[in-house]
């Protein structure tokens, strides 16, 4: 699954815009990935200028 490092995230929403399935949203001004919708294409990791999204082991 993909997680977002809140310390690195600037909130620019570039990953949200690029996500093909709208799995990422801004909720209370924080960028949040819904892992039920995410299909792990990893485009968010590729486009993030600050390296905030990363792959994480399933909880």
């Amino acid at each position, binding site marked *: 699954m993909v997680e977002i490092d809140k310390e690195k995230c*600037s*909130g*620019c929403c*570039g990953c949200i*815009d690029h996500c*093909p399935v*709208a799995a990422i*949203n801004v909720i209370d001004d924080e960028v949040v990935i819904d892992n039920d919708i995410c299909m792990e294409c990893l485009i968010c990791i590729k486009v*993030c*200028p600050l390296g905030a999204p990363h792959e994480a082991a399933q909880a």
Partner: protein
Amino acid sequence: MRELYDLIIVGAGPAGGMAAKVAGENGLKAALLERKTDIRTIRRICTMIIDVDEENFGDYPTYNRRNKKFVFPHNGFSVKYDGPTRNIYGFHIITPCGNRFQIGDVKKGKAGEQPPVGLMVDKGYWIQIMVDEARTNGVEIFTNTNVNNVRKESDCVVLTDNWGNEYRGKFVIAADGVNSRITRKLGFNKDRVFLGTYKDISRTYEGAEIPDSDALLFCMGWKVSHSIAPELTEGHFHVSGASYNVNDDLDGAIDLFLSSEPYATWFKNASEVGHRSSCVSNIVSPIPLPFKDNVLVVGDATWMQETGNTAAMALGWKAANAVTEALIKGQINKEGVSSYLEWYDKYYYQPRGKRLASSGGADFKDFLPPEDIDYLGSLVPEPLPATMNAYNIFSTIGRAFSALLPRIQEERPDIMQKLMAMRSFPRELALAKRKREGCAIVS
């Protein structure tokens, strides 16, 4: 079922904020949907400058300092702004060894001998003013609302947000920015040319000492593009690194940049403050006809990158007025909003957009090494006439160098050859490179 709005605006930026303000003034039953909760805080890198006192898509916007408002005399509207401003006197290109190619004379500007061409504003505060006016005039503001889908029904447009709520409007204004999801969902992008993915990060420093810094400083000849821009707070500067290659290490590039001269000296007593900001833009050619299924497209959603704050305001203003007209005429269709579409074609698409649609050439840095850029930068030591209008900046550079071609041919035939090779580089190869190094939005 939810109520039916006359107009729903998506995105509380310069274009959407303006459209909402106009919808309120015109008495429409309108809603503004915004994914952020705190509209006041700008999170994405974007320009904080409003171009003034020169032509901008057919208008000549100016700032009325006495009554604290931006005025658009050709179009005939104004926008209140009583926040802080900072004068920007031009656009300078700094070559690797520190030569400056100057458009606008900062020294004269500081001495009061050249008026500013741009005003840096507190953009979040300015947008908040427009949104507050809209709310006062009865526009419903929904924040924390990510619009993820759009569909047309027989009598309305339906927007769906991340919470599963539906919003129904007779018209929709899409002001959802450079990576607009609404235009994508409506199929606009099928006819648009992908020109690259532009990735940008920015850090804020205090305590830097930079000569003639009341301008935008573009630093050429580095692996990625760097720029330095003053902030509203005296002594604070943005330093950015940007590239069309999504794999470039922008952070590492800024570190290297700031440890090289002249920047190392400028920043020797500087320290980083605040949070880093960023942006990633999917660059696609401008939309020829910004209307489909009763959705009007405005601002960066209709363009490729940076219509600019001034133009975004004008687009939002015109679109919301066209919707008002359509509602009064009872024409809930394309004909109803023709005043927006004709105006957009006349002032935006024909003079500028059409050309941008065929843009996308070779990258400068692939053809000219840093020492060649130093040579070119040394050829124009005196400042050229000031402008902040991006199109005029390009034509000013073009004119200056066209006049110098015989001299370059004489002094440096090798550089002349490289310039010619860059010019004749096939566009399809340049676009293929942008595609390979970028990351086009797929849906």
